């Protein structure tokens, strides 16, 4: 994968995150790993942010295997919603494990608890990876309610959100809430990037 592609993505992420309180990213699955790379490189370059990474697409372990530097970053915490449900019992102090991706209320509690302890000098940002994987485990109406609720709570505390959705896994429901609840939608097309 070319560096110009990653750099281009990073540029778009950077612009969107800086200006908007809630960003939705709709991307084809073939670009998912490029987006991950761009996102993690961007996150590691921003010491003025505090990140909470909600991992629903894959376990925390897999993520830090791919981006080793992420486990050394002091301004990121992970919430892993899939390891426990998949029978993975690893522990890591940098990660909070939720027993099941259907414990949506618990996810909200943990997100808010982490940010509560972060000082106001840092821009708090939540990454949701991804809304479409959340909808694998939960009914659409519930995901809608969760997302609405989360956006309301995070906005109140000046927490920005950056939500991913995989195009192929998307249906009208997810599409609708992303457009309704985001200030900015980034739609990546293979042809475009």
């Amino acid at each position, binding site marked *: 994968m070319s560096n110009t592609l990653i750099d281009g993505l990073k540029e778009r992420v950077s612009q969107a995150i800086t200006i908007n309180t809630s960003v939705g990213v709709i991307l084809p699955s073939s670009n998912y790993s490029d987006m991950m790379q761009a996102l993690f490189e961007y996150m590691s370059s921003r010491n003025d942010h505090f990140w909470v990474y909600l991992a629903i697409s894959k376990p925390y372990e897999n993520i830090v295997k791919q981006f080793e530097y992420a486990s050394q970053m002091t301004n990121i915490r992970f919430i892993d919603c899939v390891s426990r449900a998949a029978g993975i019992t690893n522990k890591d102090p940098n990660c909070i494990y939720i027993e099941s991706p259907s414990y949506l*209320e618990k996810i909200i509690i943990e997100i808010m608890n982490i940010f509560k302890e972060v000082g106001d000098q840092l821009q708090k940002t939540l990454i949701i990876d991804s809304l479409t994987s959340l909808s694998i*485990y939960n009914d659409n109406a519930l995901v809608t309610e969760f997302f609405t609720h989360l956006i309301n709570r995070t906005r109140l505390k000046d927490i920005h959100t950056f939500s991913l959705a995989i195009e192929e896994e998307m249906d009208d429901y997810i599409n609708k809430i992303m457009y309704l609840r985001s200030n900015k939608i980034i739609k990546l097309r293979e042809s475009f990037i």
Partner: protein
Amino acid sequence: MTNSESYVYNQNRIGLNENENAKSSCPCITGIDELDQKLGGGLPSGNTVLLVGSSGSGKTTLSMQFLTNGAKIGERGVFFTITEPLFKLTKNLEKFDFYDKKMIESGMVNLIDLRIISERLGLDAEKYTVEDASALLEILKDIADELDVKRLIIDSITALCYRLQTKEMIRDFIFKLGSSLASMNCTTILTSEVPPNEVKYSQYGIEEFIADGIIFLGDVDRKGDLIRTLQVIKMRGTNHSRTKSAMSISSKNGIELTPLLKSRV
């Protein structure tokens, strides 16, 4: 003019009952933020609250968190257990960040095993007569008075009544307990154990009559995963929320609540 006069007159009349006024104006905060919000500040001071749930629903944990949070603001508390021995109780407690051994050592939180007391009284551990139960009640009241506690827990009223033989004995005892608690200057939680998946507030159907409030711990099934819930069913003297909250138990924060997502599950 007439209106405002009669208003003042009423105020004064309310003022006659100063105790009641003081009670309602200063709620007994649980220290569990979302619960206090639901209750409009906390449990009404002096109330007796039935905390209902099946085994493992979080009754003991919530009660202990209520006590330790009270201790942190200088309100002494006592926890009477009859369901589990003290070493087991403290072993579970030690896993929670809200627990601090110093509160026990300083006497701000007192843990008392009612079975040991009944043993000392020479009572049959499994069967109480009405006199036995009354004697136990006297001691319980003496302890609470002597320690001058502001918060009192009995865990559980179900296990206590279980030791009485007939329904009449249970009823008499519960009403005696009720008037005893009402005369004390503290806020009380009685835990009530009910079978899972049943909407009932007590084992014997009488416990709720002496309660000023009922808090129900239950769960909802979401595709096979159980989500803990908390609901305030009644609370005299407050305009409380009746919505169901999702409840989380963790070592770090003990019990926490957040609105339950309601979409069909």
